[in-house]
């Protein structure tokens, strides 16, 4: 029995059934099918919630091994594990013990540690974008000049002081946004959609196995 369950056809079969249960209700209004499809969606929500827990456990296993084997940067793994416990313990869903997302210490950590750290990471992008624009925007060819020129016009359109000083930046920027950008993004979206359809068909046929055991047979 165990050997049968380990066969690659089992997860492929489960994938095919789950996929069809989400696709078919779009085309056929069959009440029992709709009910099963709904049930599967609820299961998916449960799986997603448990996946968070599995993620935390996996993170701890990986970093525990780093510490045990004293791999490169292992002191950082101590900080990771310490931070997990620091946030997890006061945030445990036990409101009768004063724990949970309304716990004062958890609230403090979120507001004064996690939020500023997250915002800082995002804000650092300003430095990278500026240095990248300075180094990469070079008019080495006609095409590069066009990209550079369009980029500068868009930057000017988004800077209030520039549009105040020269209002035509607004319609010019709007045209770049509405016409060339729109056409390009539509092509990207439609291309990605075709790719997704092809991937879905391959998955349904069992040809796409990248999501199973890293694509290996065993």
């Amino acid at each position, binding site marked *: 029995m165990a050997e049968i369950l380990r066969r690659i056809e089992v997860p492929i079969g489960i994938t095919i059934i789950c996929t069809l249960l989400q696709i078919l209700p779009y085309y056929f209004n069959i009440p029992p099918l709709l009910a099963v499809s709904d049930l599967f969606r609820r299961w998916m929500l449960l799986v997603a919630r448990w996946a968070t827990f599995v993620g935390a456990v996996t993170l701890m296993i990986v970093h525990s091994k780093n510490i045990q084997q004293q791999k490169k940067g292992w002191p950082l793994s101590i900080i990771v594990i310490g931070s997990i416990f620091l946030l997890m313990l006061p945030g445990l869903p036990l409101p009768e013990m004063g724990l949970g997302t309304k716990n004062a210490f958890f*609230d403090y950590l979120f507001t004064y540690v996690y*939020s500023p750290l997250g915002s800082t990471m995002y804000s650092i992008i300003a430095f990278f974008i*500026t240095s990248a*624009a*300075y180094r990469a925007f070079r008019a080495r060819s006609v095409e590069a000049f066009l990209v*550079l020129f369009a980029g500068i016009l868009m930057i000017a359109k988004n800077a209030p*002081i520039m549009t*105040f000083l020269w209002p035509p930046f607004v319609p010019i920027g709007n045209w770049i946004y509405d016409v060339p950008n729109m056409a390009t993004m539509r092509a990207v*979206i439609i291309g990605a959609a075709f790719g997704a359809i092809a991937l879905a068909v391959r998955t349904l046929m069992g040809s796409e196995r990248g999501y199973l055991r890293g694509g290996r047979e065993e």
Partner: protein
Amino acid sequence: MSAFEKLQNIDLRWVYLLVWIAVLGPLMWPLGLPVTVGRDSSTYYNYINDMPDGSVVMFTFDYGVSAMPELFPMTVATFHQLWSRDFKVVVVASWVDGPRIMNMVMEQLKPEQNYQKVYGKDWIELGYFPGSEVGMAALAKDIHGTLAVDYIQNKPTSSFPIMQNIKTAQDIDLIVAHETGTPGLPEWVRQWVTPYDIKMIVGCIGVQVPEVAPYLQAGQCKALLPGLTASAEYELLLRRPGIALSGVDAVSMSHILVIALVVIGNVGFMMARGKRGS
């Protein structure tokens, strides 16, 4: 190294220092640079303004704390506009940080004191729903079943007066999504806007704007509030100056700096190339 080559290779530490000054300077000493209201912010403002009283609006947090510097000002301003009107507001989050960000919105706006909005009657917070797009699909079919208890009082969703007539996507008139990526607008369009013909407006970070453009022109997204500059314009329209207006000077200065650096680099590049050619 010639002077022209030096222009192309300014030490990045100087560049970072200039960025730091351009951003921090105006934040500490506001310059009061002029802001002109553009078409995006006025469309967004007017769309909410034109909704009839009694409309059911679902606000969704599709961003985490990392995007707060850019999105939080527009979130606060949007809740100000929503709570200033007689709407029923349902708050959800497809990103796990959403409910915590909502706490900060409540701390700033105090809906009961400043807007006389009663929790559970005029508005409700249902919290985070996992599962990304699948979660959205489940929510559309059955709001009470997917988010069985509210986030603030931890009571059954069905026990609140506001939720008596709000059970599926068909009971929602407008979705307002503030977002940074996936899950976000495309997922809402696939699971809510197209199947149930729900109206949707979006606020997003600046770098995401090109991706949203096709949905906007197709009419699947009715209005877009892009980035901090548009947030500042929106605050002007609301006549309620806030964090965005105080930060927009930094946007202007940092953008001028980027243009100046690009021009300097290219002048150096052209001159060096001309010299080599001659």
